[in-house]
């Protein structure tokens, strides 16, 4: 706790993504200038041309690995970073573009592009941790900006970021939101979803759709059993788990289970 002599150097990197997570940094209108004093923003192409090469103390990495080039580039980023923090569903689980992992990517290219032969892409979208060692994962599609500030603050101060891995349900209760699943029968992924958003969807009268990915020790089969009592069919269940964190283990397995059951019956 002796005053900070040297400002840590921060870099922000982008892989396959929508840019929303790094935009969260610019959305911290009240904190961004303070942050720029606390750290040296050494590489952040979305915000500045300035580029200081060399080594970075903290790298924020957004996006998933979908091209051969990126699969090489991420190793370079790792080499140049002391702490590597991955931000957002793309970087932590592969993002929505990981839906390709369950389909034929050449077929996908044909649907979207007139000249699929121009498209160079891998057949999978994979999280950063599948390629290099990751020091911290910040969840969400997009990440929550309060959690982003907390994570940066925590890394600067040397503490563990307060980004609990429990369910969204806990946030509902802390906030005083009446459960939409119990009180209205609305299908909700909150009980298996990682907290962080502040129980956003339930506070807007809708069930959580899982954009923060699986919580610690998720029990998706038990939730699915309840959701089918509430009227969801196999196909709907297969889709429910197959969105922005489709490639996260617990969600992928549960989605595939219902996909197969749908195929059988």
């Amino acid at each position, binding site marked *: 706790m002796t005053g900070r002599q040297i400002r840590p150097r921060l870099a922000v990197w*982008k*892989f*396959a*993504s*929508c*840019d*929303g*997570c*790094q*935009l969260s940094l*610019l*959305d911290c*209108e*009240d904190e*961004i*200038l303070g942050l720029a004093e606390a750290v040296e*923003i050494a590489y952040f*192409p*979305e*915000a*500045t*041309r*300035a*580029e200081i090469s060399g080594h970075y103390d903290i790298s924020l990495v957004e996006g998933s690995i*979908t091209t051969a080039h*990126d699969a090489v580039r991420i190793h370079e980023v790792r080499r140049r970073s002391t702490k590597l923090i991955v931000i957002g569903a793309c970087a932590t689980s592969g*993002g*929505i*573009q990981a*839906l*390709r992992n369950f*389909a034929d*990517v050449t*077929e*996908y*290219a044909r*649907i*979207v*592009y*007139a*000249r699929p032969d*121009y*498209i160079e*892409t891998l057949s999978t979208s994979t999280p950063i941790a599948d390629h290099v060692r990751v020091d911290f994962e910040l969840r969400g*599609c*997009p990440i*929550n*900006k309060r959690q982003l500030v907390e994570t940066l603050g925590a890394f600067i101060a040397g503490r563990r970021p307060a980004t609990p891995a429990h369910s969204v349900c806990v946030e509902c209760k802390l906030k005083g939101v009446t459960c939409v699943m119990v009180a209205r029968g609305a299908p909700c992924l909150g009980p298996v979803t990682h907290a962080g958003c502040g129980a*956003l*969807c339930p*506070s*807007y*009268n*809708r069930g959580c*759709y899982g*954009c923060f990915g699986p919580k610690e020790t998720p029990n998706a089969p038990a939730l699915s059993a309840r959701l089918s009592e509430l009227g969801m069919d196999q196909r*709907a269940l297969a*889709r429910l788990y197959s*969105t*922005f964190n489709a490639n996260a283990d617990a969600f992928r397995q549960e989605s595939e289970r219902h996909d197969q059951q749908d195929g059988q019956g």
Partner: protein
Amino acid sequence: MTSKTVKVDVLARVEGEGGLKVTIRDGLVRSAELNIFEPPRFFEAFLRGRNFNETPDIVARICGICPVAYQMSAVHALENIFGVSLSPQLRALRRLLYCGEWIESHVLHIYMLHAPDFLGYAGGVEMARDHGDLVRQGLQLKKVGNEILTLLGGREIHPINVRVGGFYRTPLKKELLTLKESLKWARDAALATVRWTGTLEFPDRERDYTFVALRHEEEYPFNEGRIVSNRGLDISAGDYDKYFEEIHVPQSTALHSRFRDSGAAYLVGPLARYSLNFDRLSALAQEAALAAGLDRICRNPYCSIIVRAVETLYAVDEALRVIETYEEPKSSFVPVEPREGEGYAATEAPRGLLYHRYRLESDGAIAEAQIVPPTSQNQASIEEDLVEFIGGFLDLSDEALRYRCEQTVRNYDPCISCATHFLRLDIDRG
């Protein structure tokens, strides 16, 4: 003949990744190619088979900078299939949500991305060291846009409150009124922004663009209106495909749009919107625009920074109007029955026309989706700008020339992730 290639790894201050290749032969710019390296994410492909209800949440993820635009085009296109129309209050709330996104997106571009080019800084944070108050004003103004998005949408990025037929939860009047004070401040700040941008120095570069934008009977366009141009085009969204086409060029993961018949480039976005709809701006916005030195039509892409400021002022003004006249609707949405069919919609994203088309199966599953974002529509224009504008600067050093090119591209506020990141800038001097 000497041959020289200059490479830039990343074109900064654009959202997304791409590169640029400029070929110079005998002192003339032969070609400029905007290469989009944004890894493909295949949204149109995996939308197939999803339920229509999931669309607003999924398409938002195409772009973190303008998710509301994607949500709006999607819900309007789907409602076009179902034949529902929204109550005036729900319709007004959608305008309000869009105001939030315009403010947030435009102000980000004006202060943090574009102004540094005029004032000679690497970025907004660097600019803040010398122009602290200015940048703080920008951040504060941007925050007001985000406050609208947060209140109405749940969060700034990928709002969770938009559904086909309306909203999951509509705000109480008193909740909306909490925005009023900051919006009033924002109106002054936006006005100051228009004045200040008017004092910047602009290169004297104009081009005779074909402007394409929505035009509505009464309003400055957000969600509704016919697609019009300054060359006589006047069509409904359903006819978009008849008049425009997308082509796929090598080296790029984004598609280029052009007129189907002539193959000509066209321009969408603030310049087009403004030039085609000046008369629909609020009186305050019109006055401010003229006072800042704009004409009713603006053909200088560098001046887009003023136009964005004018549109920001309009959006603030409009947001205040919506809030003041808001009455809580009985229901937060209009129920819809899935049916087979095809629907179309174009709305005005901050960066320009955003076209969506969906074909649905009878159970509400998506059979086909087509999405044409503004940046791919503008791509041809950006290349033409480069060919025309940088001709006079060929004597500059590669570094200076590269900076010029970047600026020209940044005029468009290209939201590359929806189309595209500039990974490389090649200047090939042959």
